[in-house]
């Protein structure tokens, strides 16, 4: 943040109290009636957009291709200069400051990392610190620190060239490079678009972990609505000309889409998408009959029958599940073995319901075992639990919308008040959007 205060050409007081909240290292961003017209194009790519991005939050920009979401993103670090309007970062108007200086204080991640192939991982990460005049030792320490942060072993990866890394690793280095000078704001342009689905999920989880630790302000463009739901604290859904259709929490966009456009954009299966919003730890788990290796199978079977269950969970001495035996399997056994079943359907308590559903669909039991701290067995989650959770979160989302808590649409509320001096038609449009959201 000091980056901006020291380098901004415009002297301004810090008006955003959220930026000074402890823990948050991010800075708030305000797009104030920003318009971009490209030469030779009749319609503006971004038309009078006012949008507040709260400090320390992840804001996802989604919308159909050509809707202006990438243009909007690039106007924040002025890779694309706005035709009209102001950009305010952390209370400082940065519209007229030197673009290169501005960009050195904002992290930027593009698809596939955008690493320079002729530089090693360490040199790639050290680019911005070097431009900022850090000494070599400090850069080296920072590089190692960042590689650790993105779960790459510094000793192993620091001297590699990008072509010696997998797509996921390149993307991680891309994130590390963007974080190198500890910028308060991170802009990401379809960051995980070029990696396979499994790596993408892992990178998303890692980004969330990093964000939990650093609390930067992250603005991320994606075309993948599921990614937006998973990562975003706030989601901005754009229509052509960067018209904000809805700017809201994922829960409320899924539970209460503002209009037909948003509904169509979410697509079918909004209920399924809500599964990514709820963690396994948030739902009630069923009990299970627990047995230990070495017990007589008949004893365990008797307990299972008594409880009216179909299965028994066998746990080891540290209560980690190792087997999941059906009544029929128990009937065939004499004593319970201690060989762990590698195909056991286990999910951690931090997994999303979506992950849990995936796991239980491949297990023969139609349910999954939930483990907590140190992989200790906690209970069983089944399809019915998941269905109940969907129904509940849908009603919950609607209820929440009815109360319409002030602050959820801060950007748009401010837009309405700040719109006084600007084009009235735009203000009305934005105002209409804000009301539609409620």
């Amino acid at each position, binding site marked *: 943040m000091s980056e901006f205060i020291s380098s901004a050409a415009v002297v301004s007081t810090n008006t955003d109290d959220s930026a000074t909240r402890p823990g948050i290292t991010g800075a708030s961003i305000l797009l104030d009636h920003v318009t971009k017209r490209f030469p030779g194009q009749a319609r503006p790519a971004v038309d009078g957009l006012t949008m507040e991005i709260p400090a320390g939050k992840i804001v996802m920009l989604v919308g159909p291709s050509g809707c202006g979401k990438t243009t909007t993103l690039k106007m924040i670090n002025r890779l694309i200069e706005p035709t009209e309007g102001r950009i305010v970062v952390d209370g400082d108007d940065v519209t007229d400051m030197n673009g290169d200086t501005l*960009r050195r204080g904002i992290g*930027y991640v593009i698809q596939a990392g955008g*690493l320079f192939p*002729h530089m090693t991982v360490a040199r790639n990460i050290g680019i*911005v610190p070097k431009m900022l005049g850090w000494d070599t030792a400090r850069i080296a320490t920072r590089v190692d620190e960042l590689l650790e942060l993105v779960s790459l072993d510094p000793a192993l990866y620091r001297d*590699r060239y990008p072509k010696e890394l997998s797509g996921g690793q390149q993307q991680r280095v891309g994130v590390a*490079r963007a974080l190198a000078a500890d910028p308060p704001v991170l802009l990401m342009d379809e960051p995980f678009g070029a990696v396979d689905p499994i790596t993408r999920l892992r990178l998303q989880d890692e980004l969330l972990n990093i964000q939990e630790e650093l609390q930067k302000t992250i603005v991320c463009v994606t075309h993948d609505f599921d990614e937006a739901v998973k990562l975003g604290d706030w989601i901005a859904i754009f229509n052509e000309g960067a018209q904000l259709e809805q700017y809201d929490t994922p829960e409320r966009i899924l539970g209460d889409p503002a209009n037909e456009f948003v509904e169509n954009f979410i697509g079918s299966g909004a209920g399924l998408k809500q599964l990514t919003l709820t963690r396994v730890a948030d739902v009630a788990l069923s009990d299970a009959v627990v047995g230990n290796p070495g017990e007589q199978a008949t004893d365990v079977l008797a307990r299972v029958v008594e409880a009216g269950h179909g299965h028994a969970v066998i746990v080891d001495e540290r209560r980690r599940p190792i087997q999941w035996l059906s009544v029929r399997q128990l009937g065939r056994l004499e004593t319970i073995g201690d060989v762990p079943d590698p195909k056991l359907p286990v999910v951690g308590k931090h997994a999303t319901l979506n992950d849990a559903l995936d796991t239980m669909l491949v297990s023969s039991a139609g349910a999954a075992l939930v483990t907590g701290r140190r992989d200790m067995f906690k209970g069983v989650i089944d399809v019915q639990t998941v269905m109940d959770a969907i129904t509940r979160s849908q009603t919950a989302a609607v209820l929440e919308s009815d109360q319409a808590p002030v602050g959820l649409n801060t950007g748009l509320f401010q837009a309405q008040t700040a719109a006084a001096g600007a084009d009235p038609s735009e203000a009305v449009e934005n105002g209409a959007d804000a009301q539609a959201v409620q």
Partner: protein
Amino acid sequence: MTTRTLTTEARLAGGDSAVETPGDPAAPVLPVSRARATWRSWRGLVYQLAGILLAFLALVIWLNTADLSPIELTTLAPAALWVYTVEHIQLTLLAAVIVLVIAVPLGIALTRRPLRFLTAPVLAIANFGQAAPAIGVVVLLAFWVGFGFWAATLSLVLYAALPVLRNTMVGLQQVDARLIEAGRGMGMSSAAVLFRVELPLAVPVMLSGVRTALVLLVGTAALATFVNGGGLGILITTGVNLSLTPVLITGALLVALLALLIDWIGRVVEHVARPKGL
């Protein structure tokens, strides 16, 4: 991470950190393969040099054993041959230096945003100009600027500038636009992006343009003799005019060997200067 037992040879193994296992298939590769890989990358160059030396040796042996007339002996005296060769190399190198000084900055300028609209037309002209016969350029220019060393140099420069210009532009154009954007997005100025990203990545293509130009220059410098520019071309014209076949053959062979040698040097430079990681 701690259980990782990868050797440095496994560095090229792909895969995500979390899915890589200690039993990586690339791990058992021995350091021997590195020496072998080095040899493989240099093998072509070693063979080319050996070929050039062998051909030169054959020429020397043939000149020493052949039954040559007194005129031929005078023309082909080692001292005379040396003078022609030095002249030839001077012409070539001078032209090459001038070409580099002109064509590389011009190529860079023509790919910058203000002049970018000129890129396509200039590339078209460069391709077209390459098809013009060299002898025509040499003689026409000589009539314009007068006969002699400088006329020869000027026409050589004009002729060799085209591949360097073209490859500079193509080399810069083929740099992934996303890398340029990544650089600008990190706050690098456009000059920093040019010198630290675009030019290093364009080096292989640019160097191959320079090598092409040098080879063209060695060949074309043989025509300098028509405008009294000196060089090994004199052996060829003398050989033709006076029907001295050994002189003609020697001249032609020396020009060819010189071209191959310059090509070899160019390849070595390319091999060494290619940025690591590409």
